[in-house]
């Protein structure tokens, strides 16, 4: 296990200096929209919260953390705070394979396509798409989270944004539940799958859906992707822990203890694999973590795009 105090210090510093917990400048991380002609005006703002974009960088940093956890090298982490956030972020970006960055862009492109197919009146404004600060909240850095959340909420409010489409469960929870509570600013927040209206199909396949904790338990929306899949004739296998009782993928422990994260992940993968069906995730943290185990897993948006 790494020293949480040092990890929190690094993350909080990174968010303060670069608005990204990993120090990656936004112009390097957020490029998925560049070859798409997405509208700049619409009823809803598509707000990715940059979580899918960060996934390959999380994977790279976890590989290093995994290597040094519980070794004498772990003590050197305390010196990381002296490295400027941009510098460490650019270093991390350069160490992350381009192939992985490209893969991470695909779910976002899929989601934009699915929303267009569903005739949702949405726009994308990269200048308004920011990290929500959720990791600071989860780590207990309340002051850091509130300061960051206020900046993000004010920018959205100043731009006249009222309705937001989110993609991942962590950003959805932050914007829907935490922003009103800690910034006093409220938006109508809807996860993308709630707005999908795809033509019915009869695919006749079955998958195992892994519900993320925040969609299943905190936001109570895990029945919605099941309905979307069912409309396409895709059945979801019953597993022991699902919906409101879903089991954690282990992802949230990655930065503090990759070993603990792997233990939790192994247990969850065993549960998911009992059905023998392909596993579908709908959170970038779950997706990355379950993939690490070697399981046959893909993002919900990839499955939907293939059959929409």
């Amino acid at each position, binding site marked *: *296990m790494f*020293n*949480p*105090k040092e*990890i*929190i210090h690094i993350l909080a510093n990174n968010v303060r200096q670069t608005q990204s917990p990993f120090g990656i400048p936004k112009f390097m991380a957020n490029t998925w929209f560049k070859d798409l002609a997405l509208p700049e005006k619409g009823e809803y703002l598509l707000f990715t919260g940059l979580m899918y974009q960060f996934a390959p960088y999380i994977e790279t940093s976890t590989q290093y953390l995994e290597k040094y956890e519980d070794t004498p090298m772990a003590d050197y982490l305390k010196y990381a705070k002296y490295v400027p956030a941009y510098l460490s972020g650019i270093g991390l970006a350069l160490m992350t394979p381009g192939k992985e960055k490209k893969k991470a862009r695909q779910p976002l492109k899929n989601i934009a396509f699915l929303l267009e197919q569903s005739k949702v009146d949405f726009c994308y404004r990269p200048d308004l798409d920011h990290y929500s600060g959720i990791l600071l909240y*989860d*780590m*207990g*850095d*309340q002051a850091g989270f509130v300061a960051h959340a206020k900046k993000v909420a004010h920018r959205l409010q100043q731009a006249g944004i009222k309705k937001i489409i989110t993609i991942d469960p962590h950003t959805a929870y932050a914007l829907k539940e935490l922003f009103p509570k800690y910034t006093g600013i409220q938006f109508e927040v809807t996860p993308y799958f709630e707005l999908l209206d795809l033509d019915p199909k009869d695919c006749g396949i079955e998958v195992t859906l892994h519900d993320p*904790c925040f969609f299943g*338990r*905190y936001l109570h929306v895990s029945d919605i992707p099941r309905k979307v899949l069912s409309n396409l004739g895709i059945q979801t296998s019953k597993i022991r822990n699902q919906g*409101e*009782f879903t*089991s*954690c993928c*282990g992802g*949230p*422990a990655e930065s*503090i*203890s990759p070993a*603990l994260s792997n233990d*939790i992940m192994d*247990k969850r993968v065993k549960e998911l694999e009992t059905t023998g069906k392909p596993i579908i995730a709908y959170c970038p943290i779950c997706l990355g973590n379950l993939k690490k185990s070697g399981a046959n897993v893909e993002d919900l948006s990839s499955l939907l795009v293939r059959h929409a």
Partner: protein
Amino acid sequence: MSSVNLAFAKELKAYSEDTALECFNCGTCSAICPLVHDNFPRRMIRYIQVGAKDKILENANDLWRCLHCGLCTHTCPRQADPGEIILGLKRFVVANWRA
């Protein structure tokens, strides 16, 4: 030996909802917690109830093993909200580190 701080539960009010005293130590939270480790989070809640602030600070790093998955809160028969209590303790410890 640990000292007991009877005002500790009140001190924590600045960091989370005051629900720790609702807990009657049934252990459901520890049984369902994916960590399955050393009576977590029940042990931490007990420390709050008996005012063992020092014990919490001594074992502070354990708080960050919590995945914030919410299973404990979802199953707590007393609505003591163990997940939020652990998050409140993290906030308390971070504030202490920065003090």
